């Protein structure tokens, strides 16, 4: 693989709630109040090549959005490095950092909340190119028309406010806003999850069309593994802050390796296999404040055996381009 567009090396994010003075004094007096630490992302490695679509899937609260934010540069990470075209983002000069920030844009889950309710569509889309001087003031109207048409919006709606649009149209406005700064990489965080199923397909089509036309690279985040199947080149499965499996989409959907991936796929009602049995994964997601030892998935895993509880399994290459973190791959069983 050539130099990836985005690369994460051992990226970790901890959210810490520190003790205040009163709690420290209470501890001195014999109370037992502890700092709360959530390890939202735990040593994650990802390489996303130019033009690729990487799906990132996991249950809610497993740290997907946190990764998305770190990639998009709106959240700082605690450890590890983020590289853009092979160069470390944290070490860039402010000016360069800003260029890179513009090259990576984000699309959000709730189309309405992601649009400033007090701005007209033309300002929502046009503010950034104007402020950053990407387009000459005299050409801005044409530029807006072009972008709105590109995402399937009627340019005559330019003067309207977000609440005057439907959900699908709002999401298109969000896409147009991102496109307006000429990005190379787009993080879609549950970008269609809030839309009606019929509209979902249309918006997904917009994404794919743009990918072809503009050679965009995507990180496509979804809690629903079904959504990424027809979209992603590769899929990463996440569980409680860790990546447990990463494989080309077709392989992953036909021969899921990790028990968690298998469980996720079993939950999806599938037309082709006519499997009606809809089996939810047993057990609850453990609290991220106090994750299980060893493999985080072991309390819910049907194949659990001794090492699973003791040490975290490594993410190993089980086939070319195919990584999985499960002790079952170490030979003995299955």
């Amino acid at each position, binding site marked *: 693989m050539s130099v990836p567009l985005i690369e994460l090396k051992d990226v970790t994010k901890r959210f810490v709630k520190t003790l205040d003075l009163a709690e420290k004094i*209470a501890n001195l*007096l014999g109370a037992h109040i502890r700092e709360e630490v959530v390890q939202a992302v735990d040593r994650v490695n990802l390489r996303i090549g130019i033009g690729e679509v990487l799906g990132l899937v996991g249950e809610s609260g497993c740290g997907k959005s946190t990764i998305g934010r770190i990639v998009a540069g709106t959240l700082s990470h605690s450890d590890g490095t983020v590289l853009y075209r092979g160069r470390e983002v944290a070490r860039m000069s402010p000016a360069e950092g800003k260029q890179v920030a513009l090259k990576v844009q984000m699309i959000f889950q709730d189309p309405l909340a992601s649009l400033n309710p007090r701005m007209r569509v033309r300002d929502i889309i046009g503010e950034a190119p104007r402020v950053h001087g990407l387009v000459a003031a005299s050409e801005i109207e044409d530029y807006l028309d072009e972008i709105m048409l590109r995402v399937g919006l009627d340019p005559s709606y330019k003067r309207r406010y977000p609440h005057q649009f439907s959900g699908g149209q709002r999401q298109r406005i969000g896409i147009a806003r991102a496109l307006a700064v000429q990005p190379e990489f787009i993080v879609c965080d549950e970008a269609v999850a809030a839309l009606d199923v019929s509209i979902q397909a249309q918006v997904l089509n917009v994404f794919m069309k743009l990918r072809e036309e503009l050679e965009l690279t995507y990180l496509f985040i979804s809690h629903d593994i079904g959504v990424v199947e027809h979209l992603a080149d590769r899929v990463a499965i996440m569980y409680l802050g860790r990546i447990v499996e990463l494989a080309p989409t077709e392989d992953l959907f036909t021969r899921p390796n990790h028990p968690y991936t298998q469980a996720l796929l079993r939950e999806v009602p599938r037309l082709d296999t006519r499997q009606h049995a809809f089996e939810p994964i047993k057990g609850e997601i453990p609290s991220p404040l106090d994750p299980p030892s060893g493999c985080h998935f072991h309390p819910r895993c049907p194949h659990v055996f001794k090492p699973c509880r003791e040490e975290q399994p490594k993410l190993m290459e089980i086939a070319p381009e195919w990584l999985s973190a499960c002790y079952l791959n170490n030979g003995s069983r299955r």
Partner: protein
Amino acid sequence: MSVFIIRRLLQSLMVIVAMSLIVFFGVNVIGNPVDILINPEFDQEELERAIKALGLDLPLWQQYLVFVKNALQGDFGKSFVFGQSALKLIIQRVPATLELAFTALIMSIIIGIPLGLFAGLKPDSSVSKAIMGGSILGFSLPTFWVGIMMIMIFAVMLGVLPSTGRGQSLTIMGLEISFLTWDGLKHLLMPAINLALLKISLVIRLTRAGTREVVLQDYVKFARAKGLSTRRVILVHVLKNILIPVVTVIGLELGNLIAFSVVTETVFAWPGMGKLIIDSIQMLDRPIIVAYLMIIVFMFVTINLVVDILYSVLDPRVRLQDVKA
């Protein structure tokens, strides 16, 4: 729980320190301490002696420490006007102010709760509408103007109540109180109502809201339908439900009443500490001003602290919120 109390204690301490800093720097930086602390009628020699005695030739931070040390010992200097210890002068006036504030507090309860209950139980009657309209008016009325109007009506026009001053008082356990004599009571009535007016409006609103909430709940409707007398239903359920919020607010409003007594005391020439501070500001009697500010801050912080802690004992939800935050 303990964390909550520790946090509140720390906060209270910080408030007192911050306020002492503000008062100290207000006196020393914004104003000229020589003007503020030393009697302007002193001649040059006396002036220099006083500057030395007050430590005004020391660096600022040392002066602050001296100020704190003296304040802790209750020494805020001597009043220019009365020539007595500023603290003592204020302490002498505290009973009169507290008497007024507590009377107002009790009045706001015994007038506010029945009216609020009525307005809550019969929201559509015209009396209730009048009560609620009156309570809106209560929030908008300027206290001092109402006081003046009361004097005009009851003292000047009807001549039934004395216009100003504190009446005959008795000394019980070292405290001078006036509400035990007929004359004292007559003098107390108007200022207390005047001070209570705003709080009466507040209690009416709270009581009404609490009553509406309970009355609309199923178990009360049910109890009524079952034939229990309306009166018992009201007593048992409604009062139980509204008492905690009302009592809490009243606890918190005590400090407010003490602060607002400044106005009422001025109108009715009530010899409390509020009247003293206004007179002192007008006469530039600075030691009293500084002492008053520190005492009132201390009083406030203590009242707020006690109410908060009591509330957290009464209502566990406060603590839960605190843990979550």
